[in-house]
């Protein structure tokens, strides 16, 4: 178990290092730079001075400087938001996204699993077809459309929720629902698939033969193995959800981290780009390791296989 964990940690760190290197190469090779944004260009001397100060005039030096800083959890300055450091930007926005994202994943699990189980049990029946339509609708409608429709319906006409902003509990439901819908669809689909694979197996026949009621068979015996595909999807999905969504944040005026991915790229802000990518990659690797551990807890045979 421990060797397995150690191995995962080492490959994870290697992956993050590769992600960092690749991002760095992309960041320094794309045209445009953060000091010439078109409106207020700074004089060349000032730009030179700034570049020299942060070692941005020497790519090799900058690469190591940023990497060493990142290991000490110091991501340096951002040029997108004046007088902020990347650390402050992330510290201010990541918790917001984590709250919205984890609630969205929880909602997606609460809605998606029953939907998937139900359509697996009633495969080919009306429930299954309705479930399919619901799922495909959830995948098909762009987030910015669902978000604005929810906003108009509940915010403007029914006046049940605030139109946007952040700070109170009433600000939560609309963005959480908007963010969760695509995840609901995938989780329902994966649950259905896993359930269908499991429903045919021998041990369930035994469970039925013992005279167990269907509810017991489904939730106590069939559910655990059927949940495995969902579990492996949850790693990347959670990482994605807690690093926020630009669209949801923009529509609902939430100060999350998702907007910084886009803003950093649009402003060619090297520090902010690399720090947000590193945050995302680290979370992704971390959640994948957690999922891996949970995997062997759900299905102990997997350890033996490795």
């Amino acid at each position, binding site marked *: 178990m421990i060797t397995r964990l150690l191995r995962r940690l080492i490959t994870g760190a290697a992956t993050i290092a*590769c*992600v960092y290197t690749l991002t760095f190469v*992309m960041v320094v090779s794309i045209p445009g730079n953060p000091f010439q944004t078109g409106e207020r260009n700074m004089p060349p001397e000032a730009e030179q001075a700034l570049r020299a100060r942060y070692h941005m005039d020497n790519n090799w030096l900058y690469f190591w400087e940023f990497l060493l800083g990142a290991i000490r959890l110091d991501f340096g300055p951002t040029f997108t938001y004046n007088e902020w450091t990347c650390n402050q930007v992330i510290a201010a926005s990541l918790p917001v996204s984590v709250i919205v994202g984890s609630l969205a994943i929880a909602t997606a699990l609460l809605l998606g699993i029953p939907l998937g189980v139900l359509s697996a049990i009633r495969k080919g029946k009306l429930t299954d077809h309705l479930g399919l339509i619901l799922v495909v609708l959830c995948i*098909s409608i*762009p987030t910015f*459309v669902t978000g604005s429709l929810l906003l108009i319906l509940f915010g403007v006409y029914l006046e049940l929720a605030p139109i946007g902003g952040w700070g109170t509990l009433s600000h939560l439901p609309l963005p959480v629902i908007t963010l969760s819908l695509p995840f609901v669809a995938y989780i329902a689909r994966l649950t259905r698939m896993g359930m269908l694979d499991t429903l045919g197996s021998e041990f369930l026949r035994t469970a039925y033969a013992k005279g167990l009621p269907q509810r017991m068979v489904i939730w106590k015996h069939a559910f655990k193995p059927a949940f495995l595909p969902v579990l492996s999807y949850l790693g990347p999905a959670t990482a994605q959800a807690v*690093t926020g969504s630009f*669209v949801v944040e923009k529509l609902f005026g939430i100060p999350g981290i998702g907007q910084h991915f886009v803003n950093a790229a649009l402003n060619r802000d090297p520090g902010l780009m690399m720090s947000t990518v590193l945050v995302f*990659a680290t979370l992704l690797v971390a959640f994948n390791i957690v999922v891996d551990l949970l995997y062997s807890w759900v299905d102990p045979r997997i350890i033996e296989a490795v």
Partner: protein
Amino acid sequence: MRKAGAIFLLALVVVSVATLPWSLQWYNVQELDTAIRHPPSLAPAVAMARFRQTSEPSSVSSKLAYAATSWFGHDDLGRSVFYRLMPGFLLSLLVGLSAALMAVGIGVTWGAVAGLAGGRVDMALMRIVDVLYGLPYILMVILLKFAITRPLTAWFGGHTRIADLVVLLLAIGGVSWLTMARVIRGQVLSLKSQAFVDAARAAGARPTRILLRHLLPNLVGPTIVYATLAVPQAILQESFLSFLGLGVQAPTPSLGRLAADGVYAINTFVGYWWLIAFPCGTLVLTLLALNLIGDWLRDRFDPKTPYPSPVVGRGK
């Protein structure tokens, strides 16, 4: 119901191709000064009457064109939503199809080589896919777009709109092959261990022959399935980029661009429902149809879920 998806898509393609001569002429023409104040009327007669009030038709074709346009209303610049929607739909479909094509081209090669070669090559290739997965999708699309815009525009001799479209196609397609590579590799690995591959090798077949004659035919199923699912993904991606203002450049229409414009319009002036209803409706129905087709194909081809319906439960 799943066939309805295919039929709907086909009908939309036929209509949009058939109206292409008119829509190419009209998609960027201001027809009404105060267009946005006129909600669309579903009766062509009313539309005709309104048109006569505004201006005199110059030719038969423009009269015809106008009668059709008013079914969908006009946008804030007085342009017909219908004639923007039709080429927009084709453009979005093009984005989706080219992304699927790139996913097949790069993804199948990558996955098949990794699965066949095994060992270090497999590990290296799959690590690259892992690393690319570790980058935020949207950041990658944006960076890719920035990186290739300038050289491509130069290459196209300053035709910025064409270059822009190609950049978009490449940027979306360039990140769409990762899932395909993983799926194909898994498939190749499981096929490789089967007896018929051993038999072929024992009979003296070379690796290329094994790949082309024995493995590729077995990869057609999952390839078709994931290619079909890549199309709506790419269309959704394009609509997202349009929402950010990074999609196709105005005035070129795409489903995502029109939907995003509608969202902006409805956010500022509540009431212009047709600006959001028709583009978003078309977008959603298109994606719905594509996803239904993909789902249907997956049930057909995916060896994991045999078709027709597998024996479920105790009956075996």
